């Protein structure tokens, strides 16, 4: 049995510039940080049972991986030739899917690290990120970029640069614990209660990259400045940049924001937040705000009032801390080979 743990992430600025329509023409950049909320993947070979048993929100039991509905698992098992001997794969998470925290790519990175370990191999962070990107983008044909796979595989606070040849430069934002604490103490994260798969927003967004090319350039160019502000502990400056980035991103596709999301964000600003954004591709997910700690109570009140008016039943605050660890193989039993 193998257990792998992968963190979720919050992405600050540059999201969308990791799409090939952009980075093939201009270097894309994203800055993000992993948080203390995780996806777990458990892999257990069952040599005496000739079935593939997959447990996530539902349970699938099939004779051959080709019959699976779970697209990523099906593609991964077929790609690695894991079609003969019985296998159980279970997925567990601290938060539900489609919250804009990159959980589906965290799952893919954890899955691939685990399946390769099951086969007696080892993936480096970079290989795990690349393999997960290949699984999601090439094999499953998700219209997504590569930032989440890299964020989950490497862990920590990083700037990722996406080059035209497909390579990715990873450069850590080496903020000390005090700077990280200052950011955490200003950060509020709310799950809006609205979920939407990233693919529905991204398909529209990708078809219009050329039309908004200069906006993407501005988003990518703002990443080093955001990283500088993190190192300076300038939370107000970061908030301002989040607001600017979110305003730009809203213009990229019709479904990035909705009137309900706009109303929540406006309620946050009106109660004292300096700035923020919707996390993930948009259309739902989480709202992140940076706000002086003294205003947090009133922001919480006005946002939950707003959410109640819009009948957002799943609306909830999520307490987060940033973490350094990436996707880790946290357990393997004796039956699993070690090189």
């Amino acid at each position: 049995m193998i257990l792998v743990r992968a963190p979720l992430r919050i992405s600050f600025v540059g999201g969308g510039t990791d799409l090939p329509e952009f980075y093939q023409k201009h270097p894309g950049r994203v800055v993000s940080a992993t948080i203390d909320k995780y996806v777990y993947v458990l892999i257990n070979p069952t040599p005496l049972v000739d079935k593939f048993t997959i447990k996530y929100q539902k349970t699938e039991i099939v004779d051959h991986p080709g019959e699976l509905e779970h697209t990523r698992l099906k593609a991964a098992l077929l790609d690695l030739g894991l079609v003969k001997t019985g296998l159980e794969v279970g997925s567990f998470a601290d938060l539900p899917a489609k919250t804009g925290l990159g959980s589906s790519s965290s799952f893919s990175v954890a899955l691939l690290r685990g399946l390769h370990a099951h086969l007696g191999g080892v993936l480096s962070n970079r290989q795990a990120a690349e393999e997960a990107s290949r699984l999601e983008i090439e094999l499953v044909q998700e219209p997504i970029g590569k930032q989440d796979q890299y964020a989950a595989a490497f862990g920590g606070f990083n700037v990722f640069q996406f080059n035209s040849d497909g390579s990715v430069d990873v450069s850590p934002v080496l903020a000390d614990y005090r700077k990280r604490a200052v950011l955490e103490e200003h950060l509020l994260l709310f799950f809006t209660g609205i979920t939407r798969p990233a693919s529905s927003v991204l398909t529209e967004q990708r078809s219009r990259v050329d039309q908004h090319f200069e906006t993407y350039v501005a988003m990518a160019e703002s990443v080093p400045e955001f990283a500088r502000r993190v190192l300076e502990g300038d939370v107000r400056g970061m908030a301002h940049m989040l607001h600017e980035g979110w305003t730009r991103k809203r213009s990229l596709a019709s479904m990035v924001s909705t009137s309900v999301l706009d109303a929540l964000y406006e309620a946050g600003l009106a109660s004292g937040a300096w700035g923020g954004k919707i996390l993930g591709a948009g259309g739902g997910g989480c709202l992140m705000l940076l706000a002086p700690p003294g205003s947090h109570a009133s922001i919480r009140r006005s946002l939950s009032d707003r959410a109640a008016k819009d009948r957002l039943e799943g609306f909830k605050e999520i307490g987060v801390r940033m973490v350094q660890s990436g996707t880790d193989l946290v357990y393997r039993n004796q039956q699993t080979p070690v090189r």
Partner: protein
Amino acid sequence: MEGFIRTFVSDVTQVMAGLPIREIAKAINMIQAVYERDGRIYIFGNGGSLALATHWVSDFNKTVFSHNLESHSRRFQAIRLPSTEEELSAWANDVGYDMVFAGPLQNYLQETDCVIAISSSGNSENIVKAVELARRRNVPVIGLSGFDGGRLNELSDARIAVKTEKGKYEIVEGIHAVILHLITKYFQDYFDHQLARRSSGG
């Protein structure tokens, strides 16, 4: 005599000024990640570097938390390898000196761990063997080397090379001790800060 001392101090100061600060910061993040996943930290070296490894273990396991020993239920798990003289002599006598670190490391090493290897030349065969084992298992390596960094620097994820002329052991080993105390102090402050945040409800 004063001239000798002045020259030595000036040599040390010059080397200190060129320390790879970003690499030390990366090492701190790697140790933070190991702490988050409850992994272990294996530290080893030859001769004076083995003494430093032992010193490091003591500082990580106790000094880092010593302001509030009782308040930290989860602490660092640092282990010097080999952990007994008996293992050291058994591996050296029965198998060879090149296996005194990799041999015992093989018994312990998990993917959640990290390794701190200390070698002034960066080329000690036994250090290189242990670091290669860690790399094969995707375990992050912090390498403290000297001179031109040697193989150890090439094989490390955090490349803390104290660059000097070849053979300046006295300078390299002294500065390695400074780096050990720098990292110890960082985490001592970090854990004090964590406690202060917890008690203020932050």
